[in-house]
């Protein structure tokens, strides 16, 4: 066959379509999930090291740049949560009495679980 043309793929292919960009951002959310683990471990470390260390951590966490990082991280983590719940019903097929539970119901259940768990965690911490 004379010359097939193969379209080159640009390094920035994910800028070509909005949906690709959202996808890449969604994938990048994992970096912020990892960041959160680091942040959490710092908190754990400080807490177990005593109240002065804990106060130090609180002060550090209030630095403007730490807050900015965390705000960005929160945005990405929320993006992660929303996209994750949005896609979960596609993978999960639940059957009740032989009938398939509609995906919309599964979605609602996910959000409910999210809400309850978040409230519970907040209660444990703020109690």
């Amino acid at each position: 066959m004379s010359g097939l043309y193969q379209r080159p793929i640009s390094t920035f292919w994910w800028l070509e379509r909005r949906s690709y960009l959202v996808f890449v951002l969604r994938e990048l959310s994992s970096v912020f999930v990892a960041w959160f683990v680091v942040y959490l471990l710092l908190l754990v470390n400080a807490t177990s090291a005593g109240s002065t260390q804990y106060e130090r951590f609180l002060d550090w966490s209030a630095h403007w740049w730490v807050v900015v990082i965390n705000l960005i991280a929160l945005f990405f983590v929320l993006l992660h949560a929303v996209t994750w719940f949005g896609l979960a019903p596609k993978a999960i097929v639940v059957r009740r009495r032989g009938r398939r539970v509609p995906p919309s119901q599964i979605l609602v259940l996910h959000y409910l679980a999210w809400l309850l768990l978040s409230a519970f965690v907040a209660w444990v911490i703020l109690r």
Partner: protein
Amino acid sequence: MADRITLEVARYRPESDSEPVMESYEVPLREHWAILDGLTYIKDHLDGSLSFRWSCRMGICGSCGMTVNGDPTLTCATFLTDYAPGPVRVEPLRNFPVIRDLVVDIGDFMEKLQAVKPWVVRDVHSPIEAGEYLQTPDELDEYKQFSMCINCMLCYSACPVYALEPHFLGPAAIALAQRYNLDSRDEGAAEREDVLSSPDGIWACTFVGECSAACPKDVDPAAAIQRYKVTAATQAVKNFLLPRGAR
């Protein structure tokens, strides 16, 4: 409404071009005219050398997929008026080698399709005289959605993983494998597992989801892939935990 619209069409003539060039044509803008009608108008009246595939012009044969204004589209099922006042960019489907103008090479998919064994596999085929295999409407619903694929290749064209990783089995082939896996008459799931659950199979899919967004027949190949990931992962855990004989 203006009565004409411009189509910018990608032309690629392998004998003379090293890459596609865009050419503009003016075609009538009429109600009910699909993009495809614009292209056939060009071929019939303006330039007979434009090459593209089409056949049924009712959205079922899967021939006429192209990239319209950047989106993978069935050109017989999208209408010029939706793009008015234009211009409309018509290019070949992305992610496939271009043979000529708007015609792409889908040989790769045809091989992958065969690789997933899209046919009923059974240990024992019951004789025709024994009548049909019973299948309730609910059992039919289990796989029906995945049986709607017209092999139009829009999903491959939309999937960035396929663009980057040509060995990726891809959405439609996996959806069709699932169509048989979920069919109550089929017993071939184990035979398909090796191909599906390979690094170039489902695990290469990062759930971009664009395949399902592009699919004109609501096959939802992304769902097929994710569901199979759950199945394959469960199977792998089982294989890992249970000794060989007990499986």
